[in-house]
């Protein structure tokens, strides 16, 4: 495919002309026509309307408008594949526009692995509705019954053969004026020619040639560079600023709004140096809990509320003879999104309107949030998506864009804000800490008689569109109040049969550091605990881990997946641990199984590890993953997501924990917050199960959830030691090995 990316710089004049599109991805090269016609005011944005998603242009090109954004996960090809397939047009005749509040409908935040599952399915329905309408239009013109017509290759033609009518001739440049029809017939997957193909992602070439425009690379005329100076302690207030301290940097000026402090200048390097030089006095603050007692603090936090999430069956009393009773506690620390590029944004805020270029996953939610603190009507604030460094939830993008908006308004010019490495590691909102206790009773036959999970996690405040933002908070502007963690309480119960099952959540009112969703929110920790404990029960019953799970599992897709994993792993049936747990380098294998949210993607994962006894270092040598996300739109895209989910989560499990003292985050670079490097990357074997007649499910994060337990269970198989606290650093592993030996 001849895929190109086109980007053009956005001029003020273009902005004033009413919003010609700045950045578009097209699978066929530049189609200025579509953009030039599409004055923002003329766009239909109601997500119940076909016209919000699709426009057939006069030249036969179809523009697809997607409210979800491509963060590197491949929506930019997968969504056009869905639309082209359902409409009956070649994918290279699709022009694609994403993430622009003036042009694309609100399809919700690009999160929760919902891009295809929800966003793509809306667009599929829009395309199906459009196809039905096009066929009806052609039926009238040709005087042939709709059932005897087919839409294919960009035209509607008689099934029996003969001349068709091009889409452009049927509706070109006019609106459909149709609501999405949930009953519009969908194509039979057996007839698919585009969906299911590993088409290339259109942005990859530009990223490989260095011609892609990231938000970090974007500029507008008259733009100023800015650095925001965050306080040395999280809750500190600004006492005084010595503006004279940066006199030697001509053209750089200080902006102070209450506790919001920044320097702004024309030259980026001078501005950076000024930020480092500026002298400011801040109040003392030390309100953080002690890190080494965090788990205890969570368990005993006053004011937490209990909620029963699952309560099924009843206890078997008394437990059968030979039944074993186990209990264990698991902890997952706070983690950073760890974006390789610190957050960045550009904003142009005027008296009556604002434009913000951002890499955030939540364009439409942000529009509401930013309009509120800027005091502008929502429709006067336009957010335009530009790619950033992968954020995997809500990193500093939302904050950086708010910083830029505040500063642009303050200086009356467009402003680009670039965060530093220490800003990103220190101030990105964190994946929250999670504490889980699990108790269970297992029979000698592997029957789970009783299971209870208690989890201690911060509670998301209902109805939050965003997270509380640093800039508005410091500047005393209207801000969001509350916590936003994402859906972190799911998968606290195993998918296996149990006589009695309970999951109780203890909702915490506070989080030590500002939380935000981090890829696969909560599930990596919950499944780490649940699938580790399942392994503990299997070991206690002396049953092979796969055999144990298959005995308790009813879902046929899950059963098939675990069996496929066993083949992929050349699994040898035996209970854990294996022989040789005292070897200098102990080797073992482990596995886990996850049915994501109990309603979405299925994942079975196996790992082979080597544990070096002297150092405590774990080497993951091989990961095998069987993955069923229903209908696959683009298999290479799914594969890339599964690979990424596995490697990123291995990094989180082996290495990652945000460190903090009583005042601030202290792990503010890559040496104090290390992530996985090339030399530690295992071999990956991935088996994708395609189910074309099932609904497509998310592939962007389910595999993350299976990683922790597969790894911990492999370490147990190798060494006989259970690792229940993440990360599995060499120091921690060594201590566990030593305590077992002694």
């Amino acid at each position, binding site marked *: 495919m001849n895929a190109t990316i086109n980007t053009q710089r956005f001029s003020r004049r273009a902005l004033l002309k009413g919003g010609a599109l700045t950045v578009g991805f097209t699978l066929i090269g530049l189609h200025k026509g579509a953009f030039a016609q599409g004055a923002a005011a003329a766009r239909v944005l109601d997500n119940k309307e076909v016209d919000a998603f699709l426009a057939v242009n006069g030249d036969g090109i179809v523009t697809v408008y997607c409210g979800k954004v491509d963060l590197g996960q491949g929506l930019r090809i997968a969504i056009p594949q869905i639309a082209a397939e359902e409409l009956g047009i070649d994918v290279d005749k699709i022009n694609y526009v994403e993430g622009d509040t003036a042009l694309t409908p609100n399809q919700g935040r690009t999160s929760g692995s919902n891009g295809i599952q929800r966003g793509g399915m809306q667009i599929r329905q829009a395309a199906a509705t459009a196809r039905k309408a096009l066929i009806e239009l052609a039926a009238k013109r040709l005087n042939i019954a709709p059932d005897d017509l087919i839409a294919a290759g960009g035209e509607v033609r008689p099934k029996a053969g003969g001349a068709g009518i091009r889409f452009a001739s049927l509706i070109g440049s006019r609106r459909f004026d149709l609501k999405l029809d949930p009953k519009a017939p969908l194509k039979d997957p057996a007839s698919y020619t585009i969906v299911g193909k590993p088409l290339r992602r259109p942005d990859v070439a530009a990223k490989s040639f260095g011609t892609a425009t990231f938000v970090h690379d974007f500029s507008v005329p008259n733009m100023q560079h800015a650095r925001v100076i965050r306080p040395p302690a999280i809750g500190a207030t600004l006492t005084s600023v010595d503006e004279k301290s940066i006199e030697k940097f001509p053209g750089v000026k200080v902006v102070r709004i209450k506790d919001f402090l920044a320097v702004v200048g024309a030259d980026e390097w001078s501005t950076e140096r000024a930020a480092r030089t500026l002298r400011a006095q801040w109040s003392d603050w030390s309100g953080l809990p002690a890190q080494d007692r965090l788990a205890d603090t969570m368990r005993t936090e006053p004011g937490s509320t209990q909620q029963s999430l699952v309560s099924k069956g009843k206890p078997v009393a008394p437990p059968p003879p030979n039944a074993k009773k186990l209990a264990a506690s698991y902890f997952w620390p706070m983690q950073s999104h760890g974006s390789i590029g610190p957050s960045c944004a550009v904003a142009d805020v005027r008296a009556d309107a604002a434009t913000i270029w951002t890499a955030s996953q939540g364009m439409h939610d942000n529009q509401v949030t930013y309009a509120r603190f800027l005091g502008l009507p929502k429709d006067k604030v336009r957010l335009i998506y530009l790619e950033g*460094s992968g954020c995997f939830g809500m990193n500093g993008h939302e904050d950086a864009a708010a910083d830029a908006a505040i500063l642009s308004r303050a200086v009356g010019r467009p402003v680009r804000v670039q965060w530093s490495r220490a800003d990103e590691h220190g101030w990105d909102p964190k994946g929250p800490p999670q504490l889980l206790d699990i108790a269970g009773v297992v029979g000698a036959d592997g029957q789970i008689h009783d299971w209870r999970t208690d989890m201690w996690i911060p509670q998301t405040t209902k109805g939050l569109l965003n997270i509380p933002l640093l800039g508005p908070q410091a500047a005393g502007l209207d801000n969001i109040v509350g916590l936003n963690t994402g859906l972190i309480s799911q998968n606290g119960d195993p998918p296996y049969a149990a006589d009695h099952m309970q999951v109780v959540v203890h909702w915490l009112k506070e989080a030590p550091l500002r939380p935000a969703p981090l890829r696969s929110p909560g599930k990596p920790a919950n499944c780490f605990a649940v699938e580790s404990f399942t392994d503990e029960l299997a070991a206690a019953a002396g049953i092979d881990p796969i055999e144990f799970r298959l005995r308790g599992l009813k879902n046929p897709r899950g059963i098939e997946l675990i069996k496929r994993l066993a083949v992929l792993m050349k699994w040898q049936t035996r209970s854990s641990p294996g022989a040789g747990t005292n070897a200098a380098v102990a080797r073992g294998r482990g596995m886990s199984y996850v049915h994501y949210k109990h309603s979405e993607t299925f994942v079975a994962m196996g790992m082979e590890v080597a544990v070096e006894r002297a150092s405590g270092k774990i080497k993951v040598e091989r990961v095998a993953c069987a993955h069923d996300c229903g209908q696959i739109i683009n298999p290479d895209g799914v594969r890339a997501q599964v690979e990424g989910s596995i490697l990123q989560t291995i990094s989180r499990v082996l290495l990652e924990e945000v460190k903090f003292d009583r005042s601030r985050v202290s792990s503010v670079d890559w040496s104090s917050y290390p992530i996985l490097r090339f030399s530690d990357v295992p071999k990956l074997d991935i088996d994708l199960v395609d189910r074309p007649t099932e609904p497509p499910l998310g592939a962007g994060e389910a595999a993350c959830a299976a990683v922790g337990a597969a790894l911990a269970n492999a370490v147990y198989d190798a060494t006989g030691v259970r690792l229940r606290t993440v990360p599995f650093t060499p120091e921690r592993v060594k201590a566990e090995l030593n305590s077992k030996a002694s």
Partner: protein
Amino acid sequence: MPKYKLRVNGIVRTVDSSDADKPLLYVLRGLGLTATKFGCGLGQCGACTVLVDGTAVQSCQTTVAHAQGKAITTLEGLGSAAKPHPIQTAFIDEQVPQCGYCTSGMIMSAAALLSKKKKPSESDIRAALDVNLCRCGTHVRAVRAVMAASGQRG
């Protein structure tokens, strides 16, 4: 203002800088060569890797004064859609980048390796790219691409 002469992607560029310690990264991006990315400013992540006289270096840790008179190659200078470097072709064929922020640095590290060793082993490649952090988890594909670019099956 002091002037510095650098040879960037084969073209001699004269840049002004009042600060002899201005990092090469800011010089290059100021010239519109934005493929080279700011990642940490500490030499820890490899996002800003460029070639200086053929050697991979972190441009955030290289000053303009040090770069004076040297030949600098950035991703834009390595190849283009019209005339791609074999590593760029392989990165596209293997569909390596996801977010793509670290891609430039990875490709430059790999280019330095291949200029010194025509048929590197997988462990040579991993060692050469160890400086390049990637959050998306594209490592396996990147190694395969560099193997392919050197005419080997990964």
